């Protein structure tokens, strides 16, 4: 069983710190790279899906992207989900193709998180529930992720050193990736001596604002063979929404990742044992640990022990975030988790290639762990 669709093209913009970058410029750079990856014939694209930029979200954003690329697609859609947006775009593309609305869909997302730092937004998405957080000094993404992490530590004995193992693995992989922002290897001791931001999260538990965009092109299976690069099949997809923000959530450790991944594995007819590598959304280190548990790579509560001893590093049992992840490559909202999985399954990852990789899992996540989406790719 599979979705019948495949990723046939990918593109990435310049990544990291790109002075003067704009979301539109980066997105178009990635989109053009993806069109080149399918051989340069943009007229094969008849669907466009875009995630709205964070700082200046606009209606009909996918239409703006299509227009700038000189496309007149049969199908467009805007996705406004944040960290699960890239996976959601791919799911939406597959659904549109399988419903017969279009055949070949370009998905685009990216932001200028570093280049636009400190600039006033022309208008932006406000966080839900902000009026009940700001008066308590609780603004900022680390607060509620730290809240979930603390609860996990309380219930399962997970430690800061174990969070550190995730940071170390991502940095090791980034050191092998020429596009990564942070390439200097780190140790657990470096992690342990990095300052607290919002305890129990240290500086090295946090991803940082970055510039960059990614694009990918999804096509129906029978057409996928007609493109120059080897198609990467979408074997399974699944998602789950438990809450949109964590402030009032009743359970901060029952991750939405559990049902999302179960649905994806069921669709693909696969189990966690079939997965060769995982690109797991990693805005903060603890969410990698909770995703590993939820996906069934280990038991609930044993994710902390699982990430130790190099198990999630290249050469380990399950290499995770082979590009360096949001933590060390760049925070491009999860787009590059998808493009990296495709590069790995094409066996084009060079020094960071997972040997004989056949199946990759990708996660997207937002809503402070309340929203999760899973993809399973195969070559």
């Amino acid at each position, binding site marked *: 069983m599979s979705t019948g669709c495949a990723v046939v093209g990918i593109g990435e913009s310049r990544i990291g710190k790109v002075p003067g970058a704009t979301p539109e410029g980066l997105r178009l750079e990635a989109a053009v790279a993806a069109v080149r990856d399918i051989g340069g014939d943009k007229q094969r694209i008849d669907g466009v899906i875009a995630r709205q930029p964070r700082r200046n979200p606009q209606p009909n954003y996918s239409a703006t992207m299509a227009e700038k690329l000189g496309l007149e697609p049969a199908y467009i859609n805007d996705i406004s989900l944040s960290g699960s947006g890239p996976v959601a775009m791919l799911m939406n593309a597959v659904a549109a193709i399988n419903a017969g609305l279009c055949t070949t869909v370009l998905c685009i997302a990216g932001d200028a998180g570093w280049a636009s730092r400190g600039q006033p937004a022309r208008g932006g998405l406000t966080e839900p529930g902000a009026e009940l957080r700001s008066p308590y000094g609780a*603004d900022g993404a680390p607060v509620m992720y730290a809240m979930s992490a*603390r609860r996990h530590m309380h219930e399962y004995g997970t430690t800061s050193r174990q969070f550190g193992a995730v940071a170390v693995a991502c940095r090791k992989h980034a050191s092998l990736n020429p596009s990564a922002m942070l390439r200097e290897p780190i140790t657990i001791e470096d992690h342990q001596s990095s300052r607290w931001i*919002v305890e*129990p999260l240290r500086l090295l538990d946090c991803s940082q604002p970055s510039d960059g965009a990614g694009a990918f092109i999804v096509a129906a299976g029978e057409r996928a063979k007609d493109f120059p690069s080897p198609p990467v099949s979408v074997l399974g997809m699944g998602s789950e929404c438990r809450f949109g923000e964590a402030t*009032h959530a009743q359970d901060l450790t029952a991750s939405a990742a559990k049902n999302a991944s179960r649905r994806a594995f069921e669709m693909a007819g696969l189990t966690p044992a079939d997965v060769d590598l995982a690109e797991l959304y990693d805005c903060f280190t603890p969410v990698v640990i909770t995703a590993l548990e939820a996906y069934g790579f280990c038991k609930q509560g044993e994710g902390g022990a699982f990430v130790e001893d190099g198990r999630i590093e290249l050469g380990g049992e399950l290499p995770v975030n082979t590009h360096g992840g949001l933590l060390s490559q760049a925070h491009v909202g999860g787009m590059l988790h998808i493009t990296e999985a495709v590069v790995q399954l094409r066996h084009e990852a060079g020094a960071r290639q997972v040997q004989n990789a056949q199946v990759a899992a990708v996660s997207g996540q937002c809503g402070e762990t309340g929203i999760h989406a899973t993809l399973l790719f195969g070559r």
Partner: protein
Amino acid sequence: MADKDVAVEQQPRKALPFIQPGMEPYWEGALKGELLLQRCQACGQYRHPASEVCPKCLGSEQAWVAASGLGTVYSFVIVRQALDKAWASEVPYCVAVVALQEGPHLLTNVTGIDMEDISVGLPVQVFFERASENIALPKFTPV
């Protein structure tokens, strides 16, 4: 702007709650020293924050009732680097989710205790901190 000029800039003021439509009774209660919660008149479920319908039974009849003001720390964090500049002089401070006796979880600050002594499960009770003429913030302190 030179760095020394930044240092003498006035510290930004802490945000006051934006009062969402429907939440007026909550803030009016806080000003009188009462923690009010919405309760569904059909199924009895408490909820926070306020909403037009009960997320459990979809009933649209609700009443504002006084909560006990008692609960336990469900989880907590210690902010050690102020992400909000208005809070720079307060670090370290505790942001916690308190599980109220009535069921809902509420984001707040826990004060009146050494940061090192805060733990999950700690019994706490509400108090009200005046933030402006018209606003009092429900906060919690150990029982």
